[in-house]
């Protein structure tokens, strides 16, 4: 196994950090090139020019753009996200309140998707070309082609609207009658999360399956698989214990790509299911020109993606003996 040198690790971290800085700069420029400004919603008739000036000053809009930029970058280094003009609250408070909700939705979808996806992928890859493979594979591609909001509507329509089995909005019962214990809260969350997770995983699992299937197919030709078979192990054991294990590495790397996919999904799903998370505010923040909130949410998502990429890179390097980035540096 390759040892990862400290130098390599340090370099990767610095590069990730720089990437993040560039992303922030890019966002600063892009958000401010949108026509319109949040000041529009704060100025009303009858205000004197002075008062408007004062508002502009409060929000630092009178400073030259480069100064605003420098201030913004400095603030973010120190974790100061500013205030939201539309929510009239500290952006950090908003994030702290909403981030866990998004992570719950996100996390459960991610986990379920990454159990179903590789399992199906393993099966299909192993039996590639069979009738089963063909029919399941084409069906899953059909699922993958559905717009997430549309399938959510269908689920809500049937399961909530017609059958009234599961709730179609929120994370908790808003005004609970039951006693507030760890168990009841858990049950309540599960009850509320079922439909959104169902809608999101219905499509989301296909991503990891698509990665698993071809790699699984590749390892079937590898020597150790023949060896395992030759040993007289059952087909099932060979498939699960020997082949699938090795095919999982690219799936793990692919997880980062699916992460981005899930973010898109959760933006839509949070809106459809009234899930008060980050995805819900990012859209309205952009459309209302609430720059402090938009920047902060973009930053958190970018941070998530960059950190995940860094982690998978390092783990991948550590696991895969064929890659030797760490040496010679």
């Amino acid at each position, binding site marked *: 196994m390759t040892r990862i040198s400290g130098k390599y690790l340090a370099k990767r971290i610095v590069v990730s950090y720089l990437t993040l800085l560039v992303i922030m700069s890019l966002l600063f420029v892009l958000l401010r090139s949108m026509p319109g400004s949040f000041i*529009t919603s704060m100025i009303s*008739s009858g205000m004197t020019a002075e008062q408007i000036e004062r*508002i502009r000053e409060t929000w630092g809009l009178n400073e030259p753009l480069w100064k605003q930029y420098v201030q913004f970058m400095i603030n973010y280094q120190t974790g100061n996200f500013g*205030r939201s003009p539309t929510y*009239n609250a500290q952006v950090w408070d908003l994030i702290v309140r909403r981030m866990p909700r998004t992570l719950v939705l996100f996390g459960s979808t991610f986990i379920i998707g990454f159990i179903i996806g590789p399992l199906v992928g393993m099966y299909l890859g192993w039996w590639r070309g069979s009738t089963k493979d063909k029919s399941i594979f084409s069906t899953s591609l059909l699922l993958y082609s559905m717009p997430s909001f549309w399938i959510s509507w269908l689920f809500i329509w049937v399961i909530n609207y017609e059958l009234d089995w599961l709730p179609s*909005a929120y994370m908790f019962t*808003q005004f609970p009658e039951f006693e507030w214990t760890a168990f009841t809260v858990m049950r309540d969350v599960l009850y509320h999360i079922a439909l959104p997770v169902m809608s999101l995983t219905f499509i989301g699992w296909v991503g990891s399956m698509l990665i698993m299937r071809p790699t699984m197919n590749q390892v079937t030709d590898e020597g150790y698989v023949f060896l395992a078979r030759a040993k007289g192990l059952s087909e099932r054991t060979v498939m699960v214990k020997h082949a699938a294990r090795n095919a999982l590495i690219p799936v793990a790397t692919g997880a980062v790509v699916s992460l981005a996919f899930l973010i898109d999904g959760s933006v839509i799903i949070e809106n459809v299911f009234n899930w008060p998370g980050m995805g*819900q505010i990012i859209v*309205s923040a952009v*459309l209302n020109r609430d720059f402090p909130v938009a920047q902060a949410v973009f930053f958190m998502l970018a941070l998530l993606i960059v950190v995940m990429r860094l982690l998978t890179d390092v783990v991948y390097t550590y696991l895969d003996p064929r890659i030797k980035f760490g040496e010679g540096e």
Partner: protein
Amino acid sequence: MLDNQSGSSRRRFLQGTGVAAVSAGLAGCSGNGGQSTETTSAAPTTTADQTPTERQNTDITEGGIFNFGMGTAPKGINVLATSSAYSGVITDQIYEAGTTIDPVNFGVHPNVFTDWDFTELDETGDNDQPNVRIQFNVRTDGLTWNDGTEFTVDDVVWSYNYLLEQMPGGFTASLSPIKSVSTSDSADWDAKMILNKPIGTYDSTQLALPILPKHKWEGVSDFKTYEPYKNGGPVGLGPGVVTRYEPDTAIEISYADRSGEYNLSELSWREEIPGLITGGPFVDAIRIRVYSSTSALTQAFFEGQIDSMYSGIRTSRIQDVKDAQGKMLIDGFDTGYGHYSFNLRKTPLDDATFRQILGFAFDDIYWTERLQRGYAQEGDFVMPPGYKAVRPETGSDQQLLSGPSTQAFHFRQSSPGVPDVAGIRKFLTEGKVINGSQGTFVGQEYPGSLTGVEGSQGETKHQYTFGSVQSTVLKESDQNPDKEIRVNGKTITEINGGPMTMYVYPAKDSPQTAKMVENYIGALQSIGIPINRQVMSFNTMLTKVYAEEDFDIFPMGWVNLSPFATNTLYSLFHSDNADDHSVAESEGAKKNTGTLLNNPMGYGLFDDASADELISEAQTTMDTQQRNQVARRAVERIYLDFPTMVTSYDVTKWPVNSADWKGFIGNIPGPGSTYLGTQFLQVNQK
């Protein structure tokens, strides 16, 4: 959500009022602005259907929890910093003001202040106008803050001075004429306020500002960052206490916590207003659930999770409410209007003749009947039909909304839905103007103006002719017009370096507006006017229209206008609130200031399109009757000058659970929005 942009905002630009197209409410001319209209006038009964209004009830069961739904989260509950209508739903239950307006007759009544009076002083203030001293008494017996603290006159004086010092944006228009507020030396009065000019509607504006508790707000140096809920509040004089506040999902306002302490609903004036119930609130609490989409909100109502919702229900579900057991619709009327407005700085929109034919080409029936499914009334004046006292029909024998003098700019059609192209072209080439005199215009009789007022422009400004089609917009048009208009011999494309543009924002909140714009542009093209549409987001449009005044025609709407007209007319149609591009130009300074003013049309900047004098006169008239008369003339002047085309007023249908609740008041403006506070005070278990 994308909306819901800012969703609806009580005092600001606002998009989509549920049932209607796009509306915008604004500061300075909002709900509580103005003095009493004729208090004897009959209850407005303009909006068809039967009224569910109930008379005083003797059999009231107290208790229960009323569940309410909103489609957008409130933007904080700091009464000074937020202007969101959804925040208002909560803050209205917490804060009280000196005076209050009843929703039926729009009379100004005592609230925290018991009585008040004014005297004109000899000194002069702004523009050589006399200063005015207002004196008032404060109700201190039995009234306490909702945290139990004692309430004193000192609180009121401190509160006003705090507002004057901080000048929060939403209240600037009311605060700026106030010179000072102090305790009174006179034995008859508790406190006095000096205004730097006469303001006819002082009792519903200056005396109707929220009163803040000194013990909570003292020492708050920046009101914007103050968060009341984190500081044991919000504390006010109102009936409610916020007992749960999760702005994204659930909010609870408890009345039970305050039982026996609140007495402002027991004031005797309430008994004289038909439909108002004395002695509320009767429920233990209001629970507000926040939904992110209208679909979810509507669904929750039908499933019984909520007893009612903010504003109204979308038109597609109105029939379902009618059919449903135990649900009913409370009728109400619009507090504003939907409109298309024109930029008077541009040729040929600077000419009344041209602007008026834009009215002839707008298919009102398609808009109100087909697209709004009959839940909108055809528009005419800039005051909605509910504000009868300031409508020009008052004092004439013509019918409200349907009298011939209100139909001057009705759609002129040759066959159903097809504009009368020949007639409209003739109106242009003959250079006619409807300026208040009797006559026949494009095949329709006009009996003359209702108030006797004349339009600013007596005759046409430009020479209109029709020639061969030259502009590409028209050549490519599906309408295949046979001729194109020439203004003083040139095509509009030549004059402005391009065709006219009509702004429109994405269909999200208003697919109807998108459809209407398509129809309207088709009609204008068939006449031979080169025009196309430009799609932009609502936010972009606000900037383009209100900050830059870079537009030809745009559709939008207003809500929460003042029932006393003057403030509204001033902020929407007075030249003080228009960006005068020409003046700055001569000074060599920036031509356009980029500030947001509510009169982007530039109405009032030009001698041949102005109601400035009438508006100013109305504003400073202290006598109610007289003021309303002047206001009516101003309203009709604006109608004839046609800087803005009023397309419709919404017919509001507010859905409630009538199986379990009663006490709702109907036939008032904004029954589920503007006067929601009144409903909460009245609702009681069946």
